């Protein structure tokens, strides 16, 4: 229907009005029967042929009322006056669809959140409700029958991040028979989990449970692993993304490389491994991060390689038995088409140098949790021996500090979820391996999941000493006998009610988890948002944790917020299932609530171009007009409001609809004269 075909007194439509009591939520303030009666009488000239009130419109009986009226009275429009559209617009639209009426010919106006919940004057509230209903009626006359958009879904999926979350998601999708690209920026997949020694609460060896999965990924026919690679560009929309991946040069010809390891054995250049060994160990300039790396091919670290920096050496090339060293290799760009993207980029730990009072970086024997994981790992720099920074001395007393940089407005205000269990795990390992006396300094012990609190009780039973109190400082100044040569932890033991100074040989800081350093840039690249703390924002924190606000981009694991391995795996699997559901349907239907440009009115000013939060607006240079991609448009209305010529209109919020609703609110077209008294029953 065009604007021209509508006239002020046109009442070809057959409108049904339904006013909900919502128990006493609405009826307690608004005289709902009166509103319904008023609508039936005063809005009759506008097309209202039936007006009902009912206790709970959203119930099956309430919906049936609407459905029956549509079928029996031939309604062509429906207006429901109840709660906010956020809650039940879908409900009533579906009810109409069931009865054979196009769902977009139904309008839900709020007389709860906007009337009964915010006013106490019942007379005024009732009058306002009438105006709201009138607005709905005027507006619905301009509604059009819309069909959802169908967008085909490309069957390939990209998983960004090769940690346990990404691995889980990739395997689930690949096992279901669909292709996956797994992009990982380190030389090997595995993520942080590969750095750990044991995992809580089962004390499974991390590598033992992770590496079989890594190998499955590496050998899976449906998974294309792109390690030592990064995503540089993303365009498109759900079902049809075009992603550019930069494959950094390994300087190794992977067709020839057997992973024998002679190159890194012979390489003369040793550097500190800041990534995998957390700065505690060394690697060579040509290296694989750890022995069980998948893929097994090493990479050459350009910045530290003597050949690249000075032009000499080439020891690796000399000794490689298959001639796989390829110094002249260049970076490669791949353009890939995928239907969905799962972001599983993980976390970083807090920089412990920021918490100056704990002395990390000043005192040798203060370690972070990640450093300790490497110490205790059998494949780590000390072969699993828990020793001090000198590499030799076994500590006799150890202090583990919880909540470093977490639950703290000076650093991060949130709880990092895993540190209590991790600290308990450390206590257990230290007892087991060294027989040292272990102190845990905590504020609360957070052990919510399965078998977690039992683990705490086990650690209690092993003799770990728990001191409740946030550590004030770690110092190397001896003030009392017994403190010479030790690190002294000063704290208040809140349960005993006194200050304590406890000398220890080694301090372990359970530092908090933080988003990746470049999380905000990555989010921008994919067109999604991060919270103020930097974690990727999910669509709904309780009911929809693995999807972002952008259709087609999902999130799994710690990239969404700190969590333990079971929760991470669950999220990886959940994201995979969402993707599979889409792929198997072959297409996705998108809500037809979107904006479009009337090219005749578009002046090419491009004011709207920069405003779209969903990158849905394109400009055609040749014709000097703007076009909106209906698949990306989310119908937010920003561009509609900004267009100076009014060239942009939205399907469910067109200018005509909005202006009509205003007319209704102002009661412009209401039947004049007093209301007829109610007919006797």
């Amino acid at each position, binding site marked *: 229907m065009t604007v021209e075909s509508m006239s002020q007194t046109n009442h070809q439509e057959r409108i049904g009005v339904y006013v909900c009591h919502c128990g006493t939520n609405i009826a307690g303030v608004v005289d709902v029967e009166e509103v319904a009666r008023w609508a039936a009488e005063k809005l009759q000239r506008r097309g209202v042929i039936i007006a009902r009130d009912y206790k709970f419109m959203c119930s099956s009986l309430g919906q049936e009322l609407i459905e029956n009226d549509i079928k029996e009275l031939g309604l062509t429009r429906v207006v429901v006056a109840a709660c906010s559209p956020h809650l039940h617009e879908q409900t009533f639209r579906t009810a109409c669809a069931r009865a054979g009426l196009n769902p977009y010919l139904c309008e839900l106006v709020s007389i709860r959140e906007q009337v009964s919940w915010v006013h106490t004057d019942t007379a005024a509230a009732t009058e306002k409700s009438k105006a709201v209903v009138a607005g709905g009626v005027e507006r619905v006359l301009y509604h059009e029958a819309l069909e959802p958009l169908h967008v085909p879904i490309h069957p390939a999926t990209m998983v960004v991040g090769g940690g346990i979350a990404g691995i889980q998601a990739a395997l689930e999708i690949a096992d279901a028979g669909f292709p996956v690209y797994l992009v990982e920026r380190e030389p090997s997949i595995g993520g942080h989990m590969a750095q750990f020694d044991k995992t809580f609460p089962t004390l499974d060896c991390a590598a033992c449970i992770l590496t079989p999965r890594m190998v499955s990924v590496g050998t899976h026919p449906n998974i294309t692993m792109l390690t030592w690679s990064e995503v540089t560009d993303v365009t498109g929309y759900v079902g049809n993304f075009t992603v550019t991946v930069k494959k950094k040069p390994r300087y190794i010809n992977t067709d020839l490389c057997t992973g024998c390891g002679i190159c890194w054995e012979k390489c003369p250049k040793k550097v500190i491994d800041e990534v995998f060994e957390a*700065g505690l160990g*060394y690697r060579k300039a040509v290296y694989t991060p750890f022995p069980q790396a998948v893929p097994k091919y090493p990479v050459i670290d350009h910045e530290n390689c003597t050949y690249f920096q000075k032009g000499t050496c080439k020891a690796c090339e000399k000794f490689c038995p298959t001639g796989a060293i390829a110094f002249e290799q260049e970076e490669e760009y791949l353009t890939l088409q995928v239907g969905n993207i799962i972001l599983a980029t993980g976390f970083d730990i807090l920089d412990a140098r920021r918490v*100056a009072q704990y*002395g*990390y*970086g000043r005192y040798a024997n203060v370690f972070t949790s990640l450093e300790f994981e490497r110490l205790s790992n059998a494949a780590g*720099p000390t072969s699993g021996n828990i020793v001090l*920074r000198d590499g030799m001395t076994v500590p006799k007393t150890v202090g583990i500090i919880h909540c470093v940089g977490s639950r703290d407005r000076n650093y991060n205000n949130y709880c990092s979820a895993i540190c209590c269990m991790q600290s308990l795990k450390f206590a257990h390992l230290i007892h087991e391996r060294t027989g040292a006396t272990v102190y845990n300094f905590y504020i609360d012990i957070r052990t919510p999941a399965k078998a977690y609190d039992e683990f705490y009780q086990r650690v209690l039973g092993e003799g770990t000493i728990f001191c409740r109190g946030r550590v004030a400082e770690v110092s190397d100044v001896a003030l009392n006998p017994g403190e010479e040569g030790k690190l002294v932890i000063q704290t208040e033991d809140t349960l005993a009610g006194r200050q304590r100074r406890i000398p220890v040989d080694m301090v372990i800081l359970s530092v908090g988890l933080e988003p990746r350093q470049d999380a905000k840039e990555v989010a921008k690249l994919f067109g999604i948002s991060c919270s103020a703390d930097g974690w990727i924002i999910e669509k709904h924190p309780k009911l929809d944790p693995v999807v972002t606000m952008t259709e087609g981009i999902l999130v799994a694991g710690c990239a969404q917020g700190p969590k333990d391995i079971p929760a991470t795996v669950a999220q990886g699997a959940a994201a995979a299932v969402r993707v599979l559901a889409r792929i198997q349907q072959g297409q996705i239907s998108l809500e037809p609530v979107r904006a479009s440009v009337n090219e005749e009115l578009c002046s090419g000013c491009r004011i709207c171009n920069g405003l779209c939060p969903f990158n849905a607006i394109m400009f055609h240079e040749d014709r000097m007009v703007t076009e909106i991609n209906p698949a990306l448009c989310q119908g937010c209305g920003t561009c509609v409001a900004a267009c100076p010529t009014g060239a942009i209109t939205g399907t469910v919020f067109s200018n005509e609809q909005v202006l009509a609703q205003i007319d209704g609110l102002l009661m412009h077209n209401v039947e004049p004269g007093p209301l007829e008294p109610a007919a006797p029953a």
Partner: protein
Amino acid sequence: MAKYIFYPGCSLTRNARAYLDSLVAINDRLGIQLDEIDDWNCCGATEYMAIHTIGAWALIGRNLAIAEQQANGSRTVMAPCSACYLNLAKTDSYMQKDAKLNEQVNAALAAGNLHYSAGSLEIRHLLDVIVNDVGLDAVKAEVVRPLSGLRIAPYYGCMIARPDPEHRWDDVEHPMALDRLLEALGAQVIDFPMKTHCCGGHMTQINTPVAYDLIRRLVHTASEYRADVIAVLCPMCQLNLDAYQPDMNRFFNTNYQIPILYFTQLMGLAFGLEPEQLGFGTEFVDARPALRRIDIEVAVAETPAGDAAPKRVKKVKEGLPMPRMPEDEETS
């Protein structure tokens, strides 16, 4: 010449004469002109605020009000004493943030025909002014007698760095401004772990054993790190560490003999001035042995063990690597 409105504080007139004398001796060389607040009154230290609320702020406010009127071409009030500095800074900051307090304080000041517009002055500590306004390069340029070989423990005390209402310092636990300044004088600066631990303030009058323990931990650590001198920037700290050092020694049966000098005195020495001009001789723990170390080349060590290396080695040469600290990143 950069002009500063100057708030000396009660201590500088008597107890911390050395601080004032040495500051006056070097301010020309630093290009600083001191314009003392007319008829200033005591800031109340940590005492007035323990008894009164609005009165405490009004007491400090009188000085700010007079300073605001004193047009001298500068809006910066500079205080050498940390407690005075913090009191002035806190008053200005709180009056800006709390409208009710602002009203009440100005109502009290009105009784003396005064008014202070919060935020109209910038309150800075002397160290802040020297390091950030004068600059370390200018200081280095004035050094004619580098303090080479003198091992100095920089002691900031608590109130200069905390709570830092206007965010003037890089780190409230480990500021580096004084360290850098002493390095610019050519001295060997100790990485003093207790650099901002409280000297105890007035505890010497309230609970002597506690006070002596606080003093001992500072002096003891400096001694462990083989410091010749502790450099201070607050009269209270100087009094506690210096005047009470003999009493503390008696209490613990120890024999620490570490002189406590104001950093301005050390600057004066480095600038080639004579000790007599810089207030030397007013300290309880004799500074002459330390002075000898810079008049004569380091030959005979005064320290018992005879080895000048610090007791604790921060970095382990073999073994596992240490994390890189920002200071290392600067020099590498």
